[in-house]
């Protein structure tokens, strides 16, 4: 039986709003593009399954924001004293604060985020938060959870297979890989089809193809999947 790949290999191309395959998320993408302007507007919460592209979107928006974005990983909040975090937020000129993986916040960090959200509200700063479930299901302190629920919510729609292939093509091109269509077809047929696993295998393939100096072909993919996955 195949096991899930848990590879933390980042795509070479920096996340951007343009290299996000929209699929059923055209409205979300359009909204985030508008938010990247001088006036980010009202706060947004986006959720989706693991591998749906939450982090990609948040990092992309942070990087492209004209109003300056401040992106914080969940552990930066979990491992920072609330006062230090709030102090940093009070000092920053960023007008857009992005908080990732908020479903993983520790109890103390939830207090910090609660204060941060209130501070943002008081200062007219826009917040973008991301998590793995709809606001009503977030395992957070009720006062924080409802404040998240007050934001404009977007559910990131999973991609269809054709869109996944499109994404793989784009990713391969960004890495300078030449990949046969049959490799992608095989990958979608035999591997886990969430984006993170797919991109993980693609990265692994690239590595193998480079280290063994072999082209990316179906036999190489089979080899990689057999040695690394089973």
């Amino acid at each position, binding site marked *: *039986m*195949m096991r899930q790949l848990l590879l933390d290999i980042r795509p070479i191309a920096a996340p951007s709003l343009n290299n996000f395959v929209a699929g059923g998320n055209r*409205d979300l993408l*359009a*909204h985030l593009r508008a938010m990247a302007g001088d006036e980010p507007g*009202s706060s947004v*919460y986006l959720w989706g*399954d693991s*591998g749906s592209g939450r982090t990609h979107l948040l990092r992309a928006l942070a990087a492209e924001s004209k109003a300056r974005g401040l992106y914080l990983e969940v552990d930066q909040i979990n491992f920072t004293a*609330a*006062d230090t975090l*709030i102090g940093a937020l009070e000092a920053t000129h960023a007008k857009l604060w992005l908080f990732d993986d908020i479903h993983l916040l520790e109890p103390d960090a939830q*207090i910090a985020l*609660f*204060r941060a959200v*209130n501070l943002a*509200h*008081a200062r007219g700063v826009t917040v973008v938060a991301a998590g793995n*479930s*709809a*606001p*009503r*299901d977030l395992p957070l302190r*009720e*006062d924080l*959870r*409802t*404040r998240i*629920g*007050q*934001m*404009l*919510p*977007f*559910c990131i729609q999973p991609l269809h297979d054709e869109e996944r292939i499109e994404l793989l093509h784009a990713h391969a091109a960004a890495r300078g890989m030449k990949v046969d269509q049959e490799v992608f077809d095989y990958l979608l*047929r*035999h*591997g*886990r*089809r*969430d984006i993170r*696993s797919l991109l993980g295998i693609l990265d692994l393939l690239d590595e193998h193809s480079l280290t063994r100096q072999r082209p990316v072909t179906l036999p190489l993919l089979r080899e990689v999947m057999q040695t690394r996955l089973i």
Partner: protein
Amino acid sequence: MMQQFWEVCLSRFEQELPAQQYQTWIKGLRIGPSEDDSLAIVAPNRFVLQWVRERYLSRIEALGLEYFSQPLSVRLSLPEAGTRTPAPAAADERTPAASTAAPEQPERNRVAALRADSTDSTRVAAPAILTRSVIDGGGERDRSRLNPGFTFDNLVTGRANELARAAAVQVAQNPGMSYNPIFIYGGVGLGKTHLVHALGNEVMRHNPDAVIRYVHADDYYADVVRAYQQKSFDAFKRYYRSLDVLLIDDIQFFNNKTRTQEEFFYAFNALTDAKKQIVITCDTYPKNIQGVEERLTTRFGWGLTVQIEPPELEMRVAILKKKAEMERVKVGEDVAFLIAKNIRSNVRELEGALKKVIAFAHFHTVPISVEVAREALKDLLGAHNRQITLEFIQKTVSDYYKIKVSEMYSKKRTRAIARPRQVAMFLAKELTPESYPAIGESFGGRDHTTVLHACRTIADLRLKDEVLNHDLHVLIQTLRK
């Protein structure tokens, strides 16, 4: 005779009502002298009186009918002048018209009357400010941390919060003089914060020089910690005692923070002694706060304790329409009703849902209709935390086609079993990220090509076979629920 009946009433209410409600509204009621056969109930203050009239009068009348076998006339009043009553009774005495208003008088008028009479009373000028050195720069509004967007005018009022609102208005017009502290409690997202900001803004409107400070309990705690680290307790104390109005939000977060509680205890005493107003919000009533010293919780109950309850449907609709109006968007009654019906618990999530509907309609450039709203809220309302598993799909599909779950893994290939199995494989591929080999494995160790074939077969068939297509729709909906 009335006394006996009243005792029956009390014991019935004690059984029927939650303890806190009984304590707050019923226990303080007294029987007054009555010349005829009517029951004269004396309420300790106007708020209790209004509340009892609205919520419990009909029940008392019903109990009376049961007890005396004839209709009982009930009169509600406030204590006579001269009897010892809390401070606000002074206002009550002057306005018997408002307080003994007939029960059928519309609620709005009663609240209006209440406000009208409070404005008559003499305003107390804010005392001189002792010091304002702690926070420098910015105007009084910046220092106050009040959000000017929260006012009494844009607070939607309904049964759930009208008493709290009326009390807050009263306090805002007479800070430090009527109810001190005013303790507002209720669940999350019901508008407690809005109400206290509105109170603060109202005080500031009347008296721009008043030193007002809104502080969340967590921030107060952070201030105490900072004072500790910087050894600046003197400045801290001076600052908090210099306030004319202190609005402290979510006091339940003081739990187990002893030093914070101690500091607040002294600030509380200093402020109340100087007749400065304290406004507290909490998620529960004073006696029920966990991890807070009794000397504090007792004091919290000294003034007036009012509850904000979750808004009923009509109020949720009204809130939505108000918010839409503020966004300059037209939202029909039916759409507001759809949202309000699906989101019950708190006001904030109503707002989130409304924003979603507006953004969706804007993006697709369609007018906001019920269908559009339903589509926009699909993910938000149909949300589930459950990951769809292969086992769950197999179970659901078996149930749907009324076959045994074991048939999903069996070798049988009769049509009646093979087709549902193919449907389940198709759904597994559509709804989970599992690979074809993994799916095959879970269906009795079948090859991935079998899964692939099943998926293709079902994908082709559903285009021609309406029944199958319908089955798939129903199954997907069931699985996603």
